[in-house]
């Protein structure tokens, strides 16, 4: 009886992905209550497999809805709840690969935008070994996307990242939620490397460099970063900072050498 109600809610959720978040979360909490009454919130050995599938679907829908509402915390919670279901052997619960990869890919992207690279790679490692190591992570539509993005970000091919965020390349709607965050992230990356790499930049080409829309935006961005704008060029204020650093550096070094030498003397004393 109860599981029929659950499947109805799920069908409702699946049919209208545009549903507003409060509405969806009301339905989701109802679904979770039913799961609780069926004792299927977490998988136990005695839970029948059709219930397991329903529970998994509930969480997956919950994850998708919360990412559409840009609620990262709720999304993370759903992903955590899904983990035990994904760990189940395929005999108990036949895996639903597209959905699983979609959610996992999203969680990878979330880790990436939050700069949690260590967790990103831990997750990636376990993906590579999932299903007996035969899984083709890079070839997958959903999983390959964050993996490629990470690689490009690391090597610095920002233009490729930019292109990948164009709507045609994004595997599904939910992924574009992260585009805005990523855009800002790569813009600040580019800005910080430009500061070191160029002595000066003409405003006109900075526009394309930073993927900004107009020269006005460029000037605003330059002000925001504290750059000097003179005669159609941008200058980076960095020479002054280096001079004062040098003095500290020399002082540091001689002090370090003295400390080290004293340390050796002390150690030698204990040995001899």
């Amino acid at each position, binding site marked *: 009886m109860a599981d029929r109600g659950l499947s109805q809610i799920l069908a409702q959720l699946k049919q209208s992905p545009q549903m507003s978040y409060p509405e969806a979360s009301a339905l989701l909490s109802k679904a979770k209550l039913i799961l609780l009454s069926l004792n299927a919130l977490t998988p136990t050995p005695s839970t029948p497999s059709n219930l397991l599938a329903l529970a998994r679907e509930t969480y997956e829908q919950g994850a998708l809805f919360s990412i559409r509402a840009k609620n990262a915390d709720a999304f993370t919670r759903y992903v955590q709840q899904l983990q035990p279901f994904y*760990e*189940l*052997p395929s005999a108990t619960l036949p895996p639903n690969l597209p959905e699983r990869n979609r959610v996992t890919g999203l969680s990878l992207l979330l880790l990436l935008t939050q700069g949690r*690279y*260590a*967790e990103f*790679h*831990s997750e*990636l*490692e*376990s993906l*590579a*070994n*999932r299903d*007996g*190591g035969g899984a083709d992570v890079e070839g997958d539509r959903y999983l390959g996307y964050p993996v490629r993005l990470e*690689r490009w970000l*690391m*090597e*610095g*091919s*920002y*233009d*490729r990242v930019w292109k990948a965020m164009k709507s045609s390349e994004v595997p599904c709607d939910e992924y574009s939620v992260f585009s805005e965050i990523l855009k800002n992230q790569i813009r600040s*990356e*580019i800005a*910080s*490397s*430009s*500061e*070191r*790499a*160029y*002595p000066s*930049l*003409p405003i006109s*080409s900075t526009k394309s*460099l930073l993927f900004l829309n107009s020269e006005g935006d460029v000037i605003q961005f330059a002000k925001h970063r504290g750059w000097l704008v003179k005669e159609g060029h941008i200058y980076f204020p960095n020479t002054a900072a280096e001079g004062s650093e040098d003095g500290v550096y020399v002082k540091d*070094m001689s002090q*370090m*050498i003295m400390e*080290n030498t004293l340390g*050796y003397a002390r*150690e030698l004393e204990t*040995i001899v």
Partner: protein
Amino acid sequence: MPSKTPHNNAAKDGDDSMTVVVPPSKSSKQPAPSTDAEGDVAMDVDKTEEEKVDPAVQAVADIKANFALLDRAVALFDARFSLRALRSISLIRKHLSPDVIAQAIADTFPATSASGSIAKSLLAAVGREDVALGRAAGAEMEVDSDAKAAKNGTSKKEVKEIIPEIDVFLGILVQVYLFDAKKYQQGADFSKYLSDRIQTLNRRTLDCLSAKVYFYFSLFCEYIVPLPPSPESPIVAIRPTLLAVLRTAVLRKDTDTQASVIVLLLRNYLLTSHIKQADLLVSHTQFPENAANNQVARFLYYLGRIRAIQLRYTEAHEHLTAATRKAPSSGCAVGFSQTATKLLLVVELLMGDIPDRATFRQPSLEDALHPYFLLVRAVRVGNLEDFETTIADNADIFKRDGTYTLILRLRQNVIKTGIRMMSLSYSRISLRDICIRLHLGSEESAEYIVAKAIRDGVIEATLDREKGFMKSKEVGDVYATREPGEAFHDRIRACLALHDESVKAMRFPMNQHRLELKNAQEAREREREMAKEIQEGDLDDDDLGGDLDGM
């Protein structure tokens, strides 16, 4: 406590040479003709075959020889004797068969003893339930060994009850046999029984034995289908057991079991790629400081692996270097040092260093490291094309080694090295040329990549956007920086640490200082006497010299 102890591997531990009188015969297969204690035991078992000793009989004798060690370990409360018994397993291993084990059991356990049921279950595990316990030979042996014990002054007259150490030792032998015979399921069941039994016993002298038991338990589970990394593998199911064992071990301050179980758990998690759990385990436990060297090496390797996956390369490098250095240098652990070196090489590459060429020349590593050699070559030159083909050619090997995902991260390093090479060779180069040489997608990509390299401090250069070229700065003198000083400091610190460790690793025999105190006391008394005699004036120089020598 000097005595004639039958054992085969005194050569391995020089630290207890004071207990050894009989020169050790290294090979157990060809025993010296029955003059030393080893032969004695063999004779007791089977007097008719005195001349040409059957390997099986010899094996039984060897097994029993270890019981004396275990007895001593318990009597003296010194784990070193048990360790020695454990080390001899590798020698006995070749001759293990159900019959040998069954005979050893039958000879050891008297039929009427309370521990009869234990013996029965040991026999059942090797499929020899029908062997009767406490046979005539066994009784005879006991008498003889008693006589021997009396002769040697260890004075343990009657072996009434078999100590648990001996039956656990026999259990380990059964495990070894089952493992070698590839009876994994049976082995796992037996190990389960054995570990349950160990948990009911609380004896410090069992510690190193029980560590071994858990080791084989986990090994059996690894080999049962479905093999890891499948989540259905039995290794997932034994995690709660191992964690419980770890808790008990920590409470009992049982460092042997603690170290070995932590290592087992880490291995367990990493086999199923549960990096997060492994990391949590490391952060919530404290690896015992005075653990056995081999366990430390393993622990450091797994730790290095976790850190490498988490992009903490500096830590990973530190741990892995220590692991490779702690690995036994003799041929018995080639596999470990190969695996650790492979991982170390990849981590070094990821840090932007180029590994020493000498590493690849070591005979024991040369073949295994060949794919990595190709990889290093590609990275060193900064040739992206070579790099891609090397990965494609050796993908299977890298996947098997578990370094594949790490190696994929190297792509950016290859590019960086390429850019560095170019910045060193040209004072000015157009972005277009960089793009063509490094096979990058487009000029814009090249520009961003170079800009990032400049920011990350890989090269010293500036970009000119209007004209589209990269201009290298003059390379400074390395000796004017703090770099040489730091390298020097690092080395000195390593030497000092080595010195400290060696001082800490020195072992002194127990109660030796009391002896010295006594000597000192005597010396003082003698001095006082001498002083008195000198005062009395009846002591000449010759006497004085002689006395001092006698001290």
